[in-house]
Each structure stands twice: as structure tokens, then as C-alpha cells.
């Protein structure tokens, strides 16, 4: 089935200017410029900059080849492996950056990411773009990547805020429980604040998009020769998709933390929250 969004602009014939190895070497000159600044100002960043540049090249080339292979082979098993690796890495990244943690936090963030990102990806590929089957790698992998990149930040911020609140404002929560509040009544304010915290970067990004920032995906599409209006349509879908995935991810992780740190006897198990030694 032809993707609906793409079909709408058949008139725009893309003119893709090919990038070869020579052009990429020229681009490396830009990194040399940054290195020169570091040397002149004695920033001592040359080594780290070199490593970072090499990593950029290697990681992106690697993923480029993997994606090409996955798209060509069109195997559901290979796709499943790629998706699982993406989800696991994202869950690890989301759970790693918080100041406080609890046992099982990685699993919780994995569940929240899987539920929110797969649901949103399905809604976009199946219902909005109209891809058949909905998990066609060429659509699913990049969309999932964009969703995960954003919702992991939201989940991470939400987790951090929630755990910090439950630890620092433990007395306030226990006071409410001691006066007869249910666990939900005592937890809903910290939960609300945490979900809000997780959503802020996405809402900020949505408010300034196109004015302050031109999103990478859209810029990439335009550079690759796509009609700007088509690129914009895709970008709108992407922004809404990210907003939905982040909101769902934050709500899911909030509920999972709630289930883990409040028990059926309406007690706050604050001793389960541990602080990381950085």
C-alpha cells in the first residue's frame, strides 16, 4: 500500500545530490576547524574531539549498513532483534541518569518504553501513514528511533523528579497517609509534578519548532531533495508522535514507580529508594 502522506505530493520530483566518500572527507575538514580552535585556545579537547568524530563516523556508518541490510532482507526476526536492541539501550539510558534508583527500575523503564513507543509507532505507521504491514522496517525503525530518543529523556526526567520527591518529601507523603489518605491520594501530587517535568522538553520543542529550531529530520529530508511542505507534514506527524509517546511513557513509568513504592497496605516503601554514588 502506498503511504498516504507521500502519495499526496507526487508532483514534487526529488533531486537528491549524491554524497560520496570524497565529500565526507571534506566534511571532516570542519572537525579539523573545531580542533584548531581547541589548539589555539588550549582547550585540550583535541583528543576527545577526535574520538568523538571517529565514533560519529563509525556508529553512523555501522547503523547505515545495518539498516540497509535490515530493509533489504525484510526479515521479521532481524527486525525484532534490531527493535529489541534499540529498546534495551533506550531503557538503560533512561534509567542510568537518575540520582536515585530502586531495584527493578531498569525493567520498569523498559516496560514503559516498550508500551509507549510501540503503541505510538503502530498508530503512526498503521493509522496515519498507512503502511502495510505496520512494522515495515523502512518506516518502523526510523520512527521508533525518533520516538525512543525523545521519550527516554522524558522518562528519565520523570523518574528523576518522582524519586527525588518521594525521597525528599517522604514526611509529607507519610503525614497524608497518617491522616487517612489512600496511597493514590498521597501519591497523585508527586506523580502529576513528575509527569509534568517529563513533558516540559517536548512541549518546549513543540512551541519553538520552525522558529528557533529546524528539526534534524525535516532538514535532512529537505537536503535529500524532498519538497519542504511534505517534509513539514512529516515533521508535524513526528512532533505529535513524540508528544504522545513521551506523555504515555511518563504516565506508564509513573504508575510503575507508584506500584513498586506504595504497597497494598497504603505504605510508602521509601527505604527501597537508594541514592547513586557518582
Amino acid at each position, binding site marked *: 500500500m502506498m503511504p498516504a502522506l507521500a502519495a499526496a505530493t507526487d508532483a514534487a520530483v526529488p533531486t537528491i545530490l549524491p554524497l560520496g566518500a570524497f565529500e565526507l572527507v571534506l566534511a571532516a575538514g570542519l572537525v579539523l576547524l573545531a580542533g584548531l580552535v581547541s589548539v589555539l585556545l588550549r582547550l585540550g579537547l583535541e583528543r576527545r574531539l577526535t574520538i568523538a568524530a571517529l565514533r560519529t563516523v563509525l556508529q553512523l556508518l555501522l547503523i547505515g549498513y545495518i539498516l540497509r541490510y535490515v530493509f533489504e532482507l525484510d526479515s521479521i526476526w532481524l527486525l525484532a532483534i534490531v527493535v529489541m536492541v534499540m529498546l534495551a539501550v533506550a531503557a538503560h539510558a533512561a534509567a542510568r541518569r537518575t540520582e536515585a534508583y530502586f531495584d527493578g527500575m531498569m525493567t520498569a523503564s523498559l516496560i514503559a518504553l516498550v508500551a509507549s513507543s510501540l503503541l505510538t509507532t503502530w498508530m503512526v505507521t498503521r493509522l496515519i501513514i498507512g503502511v502495510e504491514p505496520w512494522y515495515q522496517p523502512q518506516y518502523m525503525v526510523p520512527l521508533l528511533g525518533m520516538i525512543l530518543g525523545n521519550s527516554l529523556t522524558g522518562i528519565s526526567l520523570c523518574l528523576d523528579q518522582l524519586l527525588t520527591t518521594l525521597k525528599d518529601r517522604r514526611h509529607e507523603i507519610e*503525614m497524608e497517609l*497518617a491522616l*487517612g489518605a489512600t496511597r493514590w491520594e498521597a501519591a497523585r501530587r508527586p506523580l502529576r509534578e513528575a509527569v509534568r517535568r517529563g513533558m516540559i522538553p517536548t512541549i518546549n520543542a513543540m512551541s519553538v519548532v520552525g522558529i528557533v529550531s529546524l528539526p534534524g529530520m525535516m532538514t535532512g529530508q529537505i537536503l535529500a531533495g524532498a519538497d519542504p511542505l511534505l517534509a513539514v507534514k512529516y515533521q508535524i506527524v513526528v512532533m505529535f508522535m513524540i508528544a504522545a509517546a513521551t506523555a504515555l511513557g511518563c504516565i506508564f513509568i509513573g504508575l510503575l514507580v507508584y506500584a513498586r513504592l506504595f504497597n497494598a497496605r*497504603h505504605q510508602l516503601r521509601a527505604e527501597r529508594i537508594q541514592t547513586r554514588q557518582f
Partner: protein
Amino acid sequence: MFEIRDLDVATPADPATPLIRKLSLTVKAGEIVLLHGPSGCGKTTLLRILAGLIDPMDGQVRLDGEDGDSIGWPRFRRQVVLVQQRPVLLEGTVERNLAAPFAYKSADRPYSADAARSLLDRLGLPGGCHAQPARTLSEGEQQRVCLIRAILLQPRILLLDEPTSALDERIAGELDNLLSEWVATHPSAVLMVRHDVALARAVCTRAIDLTPHHVARQTVEAQR
């Protein structure tokens, strides 16, 4: 009737070391029971267990034969209210703090502004105080707001952890009078931990020494 049976008390941080072993105690309406003992003997932890905020290692806590598992913990805690030593108030005015627990699902009566004002007045927090931001009050004033918030709920058992720690002697005396009157006119009882044991004995109907080797002996005496 509030019953404590064979309670073993330990902190969640160190659940392997019991601070209090096999505590049994029955408290009837009208009583004011003083719990005392050296610091670190588990008084605060005991009160938190009685309120169901943490679990005991062993033993039961029942109100009229029912525990939190049978009637639901929020409802149990509405009847057995704990006022912790450090005053904890929410953002907002004194009145908002006093009224907040009446918005919980477990609330069984509406908030009475008149009752609140008369209690504020009585504990030296006169007119106009109810509209003040609660967190701008002094520690002693905040402690009184917390006490009033608990009394307004008219619990069957009031658990007080060092209720007079930030109060001057006159206000502390007024609180003692208030508690005596309250248990005399309501089907309620008070269990409190106090550092000023001598003063507290004047208002208490009974004193329980929680020094480790005392607990077992008193339990035996009580059972005779």
C-alpha cells in the same frame, strides 16, 4: 478498645535487630498513656507501626478487634491518627491544612471551621491565623496546627510523638488540659511519647516504660 499483641518492633533500615520485643498493651477510651524510655529504644518506630505506616516484625495491632487489613488501611488510620514529632504542613494556608484530610475518601464527617477556630484560639493561635500561610509559622505554631489537624478528625486513638517538644510550658499545659477534656468527652484515647516525663505523668492515666528489659515484665504484670 485498642489492642497491641506480642508486638516485635524494628526499624525498616535494620529489620534484623528488634528494638522492642513482645509488647502487649490494651488501651481503653478515656485513657492517656505515656510511653517513655531512653532515646533509640524504638518509641517513634513503635508509633509508626501502631499507625500502620510500617509493618511490625511480628504481632498485631487491632481497634475493636479489627486491623487495617480487614477494614482498609486508610480507614484504620483515620481512626488511629499519628502526629509525628517534626511538624509537616502542606503548601497553603493554615485552614487549607486543617481542612485537607476531610477531602480524603476515608473522611466520615465534614470539616468544621468553627471547631477549628476554637481549637486554634485555645492553643494560642488567635483569630486571623487560619488565613496565614502555614509554612511561615514558627515551629511551635506549626506543631500546634498539626495537633489541631489531628484532633479535628476526632480519631479513636491519637498517637502523639513528642507533642510538646517545641511548645513553651504554658502552652504545653494547655495542651494537656485539652487532651484530658477531650478523652473525657469523646470515645477516644491518647498514646504519647514525651521527653518531659515528669510533666507528662500529671496528665497521663498510665505510663509504660519501653526500656528493653522492662517491657516483658510489665506485660506479665498486665496479664495477671
